């Protein structure tokens, strides 16, 4: 077990390096540059002016040098300064990361609660009207893009009650009410969509478990239905669900982009989107790197915890 964990941690290093190189290549292939966007409002400019700005931003160096600098910086968590506002990239990301984590976590709770409750209900009432309704709603949830759900969440209250959501974000420890007013609808918009897959998985594993011998034994012992389901079936059914949800939590981190934009939440996703449109390449690199790093780390944790949860898993060839 220990060797397995050590091996996995060591293998993370080449993966992270590949991610870093991939990010650099991808961002530097994007057409357009930050200087021209900054000069957008200038009627005229000279080539010398352009070159001097380029030099100032360090963009005149050869790509291989820039890549080396980026990779070297990563080893001691220095991702350079933003090309757009000259602030350290890490500072901006880490000041916003808690917000996105909160949003992702809340969305995760929404999706887990909805997903598991409806999944269990659908499984134990298999093939009834209730099962069909929940399943179709689950798939319906999958079929609505989150920008669409978000738009409706914003628009319907204003159309029906002429009431609008809070417009300015506040950190939860500053003003909890204001924070929740923005975060709850935003988390719902993401969570409803994400709950669909949790629900489907819960239903499937629950059905599998319910057909097992030990459930029959439990029934035969004369346990009450409720007891059988909660004590025996659900516990076993949730093992794969939990691991999938772990992956999902990290996926949600990258999936908050559109909702953060809709609800004006100053998170990492919105920063990333802004940086892409502004071609603030250092910021884009840093942002994707952090999201990808968290994702890789989460996956590792999920994989390891899977072993603890289910002793049948062998670690031979993973």
């Amino acid at each position, binding site marked *: 077990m220990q060797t397995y964990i050590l091996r996995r941690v060591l293998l993370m290093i080449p993966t992270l390096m590949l991610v870093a190189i991939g990010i650099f290549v991808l961002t530097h292939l994007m057409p357009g540059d930050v200087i021209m966007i*900054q000069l957008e*409002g200038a009627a005229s400019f000279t080539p010398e002016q352009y070159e001097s700005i380029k030099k100032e931003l360090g963009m005149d160096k050869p790509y291989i040098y820039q890549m080396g600098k980026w990779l070297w910086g990563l080893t001691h968590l220095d991702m350079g300064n933003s090309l757009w506002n000259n602030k350290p990239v890490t500072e901006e990301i880490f000041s916003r990361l808690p917000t996105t984590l909160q949003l992702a976590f809340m969305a995760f709770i929404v999706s887990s609660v909805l997903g598991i409750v409806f999944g269990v209900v659908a499984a134990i009432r298999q093939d009834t009207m209730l099962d069909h309704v929940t399943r*179709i709603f689950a798939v319906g949830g999958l079929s609505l893009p989150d920008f669409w759900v978000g738009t409706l969440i*914003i628009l319907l209250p204003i159309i029906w009650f002429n009431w609008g*959501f809070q417009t300015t974000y506040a950190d939860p420890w500053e003003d909890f009410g204001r924070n929740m007013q923005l975060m709850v609808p935003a988390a719902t918009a993401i969570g409803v969509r994400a709950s669909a897959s949790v629900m489907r998985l819960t239903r499937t594993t629950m059905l599998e478990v319910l057909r097992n011998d030990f459930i029959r034994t439990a029934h035969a012992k004369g346990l009450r239905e409720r007891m059988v389901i909660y004590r025996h079936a659900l516990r076993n059914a949730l093992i794969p669900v939990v691991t999938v949800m772990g992956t999902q939590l990290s996926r949600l981190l990258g999936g908050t982009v559109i909702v953060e934009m*809709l609800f004006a939440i100053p998170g990492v996703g919105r920063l990333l989107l*802004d940086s892409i449109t502004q071609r603030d390449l250092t910021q884009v690199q840093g942002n994707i790197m952090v999201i990808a790093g968290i994702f890789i780390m989460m996956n590792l944790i999920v994989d390891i915890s899977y072993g603890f949860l289910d002793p049948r898993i062998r670690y031979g060839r993973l």
Partner: protein
Amino acid sequence: MRKFRLLAPALLASGMLAMLLIMGCGGSDDDSTTTSTTTESSSAASTAASSSSSTSEAAAETKEEAKAEATTATTTETTSAAAPAATSGDVAQPQYGGEWTFQSTSPRIGQDPINTTGTGYFYNWGTALSSLLRYKMDPSICSGCYEIIGDLADSWTVDGLDVTLHINPDAKWQGSGAPTVAGLNGRNFTAEDAVFGVKRLAGEGSYHVGYWAAMESVSADGDNVKFKLKYPSATFIPNVAYGFNKMSAPEAVDAGGGNLQNGPTIGTSGFTVDCEVDVQCVYTRNPDFHLSDDNGNQLPYLSQARNIIIPDVQARFAAFRARKLDTHGITAEQRIIIDRQYPEIQNDEIKHYGSWFIHFRNDQAPWNDKRVRQAVSKSIDRQEIYDTIYGGLAHMSLAMAMPAAEAYLPQEEFKKAWKRDCTEAKSLLTAAGFPDGLDAKFWVANYSETTIAVVELMQQQLKECGIRIELFIHDRATYLARVFTRHGEFEDMAYGPQGIFTADQWLSAYYHSEGGRNSSWTDDPELDKMIDAQRQQMDPAKRNQELLDIQAYLLDQTYQAVILTGYSRTSHQPYIKNYAYSSGLDYPGRRHVEHIWVDKDEYLTYRNEKEWID
């Protein structure tokens, strides 16, 4: 049970359909009526046009709507908001206090005024700063004209190559409320400060060097700032007053470590600023501001202003309807809803001179043939575009802000020259050697959905006249780097926006063969000569005439085909007073927050709250 199982999915599906319908309609149970009303009102009422995001937004941030401030015309029947200084006595007197909330783009931007050209900066950090001179904002200023007045300098003289500005003795750097910097807080603004500020703007690393090209040297002399020019320039004083050219303090630059990218932002305007990145900027009244209104009341009136950052158009409009925003740049569709449901809201529509236009590759065949360019221009039914997509609200111009109203070519000239005429377009093409029409590539800068709609409409209009275009959609960054630069790298044609520039800036940048924005590869010695001549023409009347001649020449040559010049359309809540100003020319510092005031009683009634900031 078995039968039921077959039936269930069908039932459920229809149930879901119904649910979706209800959700989508927003509960309006009669959607056919809704739409037909729409059609009527959009043709009848002069409901408006563009998302301002597409027209006015040329040089602005993507999807930024709330710029655009206002002019004389208040289009609804509600009580018009007039300037407190206006002569008419029936206008309410301005009140001090209160808060005004508006919306603009993110303040996630460097804080150094010399390193930015985006409106995003000037509506955020830049509001704390001011320039030596400014453009007058008053209902008496006609749309498209401007008048320069004093700000940090209270008077100026031009004598050939010598320009002297006298610094306002009341001008002070912000003290209370602004970040603390040793030696700066609250001290007077001096001529040395002005020299420092100008040298920064004209020095290395500044993005605004172009405005100071005519300047030979600058020095301080007591209360005066003396400029020495290289050549006589009609545009020097207008450039000093131009919104980009904000003054910064030497102590602040030192405190920022040689630049102001990360602050501190300490200015000389009526408000100190504090921004929470991507959330909001809060502006607090500067009690020591040096300007007063015409009745001697000290400006600004507001106690506080807040700039709330909402990136999404729908969310923004929802906030405005819920009265969480006091002003809002609206789209044609939103105007329909406002007219229908919110009669108390006031609307402003003002002409501006930012445009959308087609670049041609003037250096390549067939675009080096005037007839082909004219054929394209003739094939486009501009009025149809205005009516369909901009609710009729767009005007024709060559997209340059002229120094005086007399220097604008009249609308009739444009209407005549740009009238759609397929037959003539076809015969022009035949004469140029394309009897079967022409296939061309068409670059599009995708700024918003409105752009796309315009281009789709244009594609059909061109097709009807024998010009078949293939669309290539690119985003803003790509457009700016590849097309909107000297010698643009595109094929055949490109469609994109342009900011609001003065005639001289735009002519020398775009049409001059040496221009830094000569994206359409124009190289016309005769035109170059005309452009250089008007810049040095110090007699205003003669210069107006020269500008008119240039416009007529351009109208004929069609080096670029201007499709539309826009209107800024804003709506504001009824308790916001004195909001209407001429757009004038001081883009991008167009909105002078100092003059806005809030009617306390109306504010409390409409907002339905007790809160009032004194």
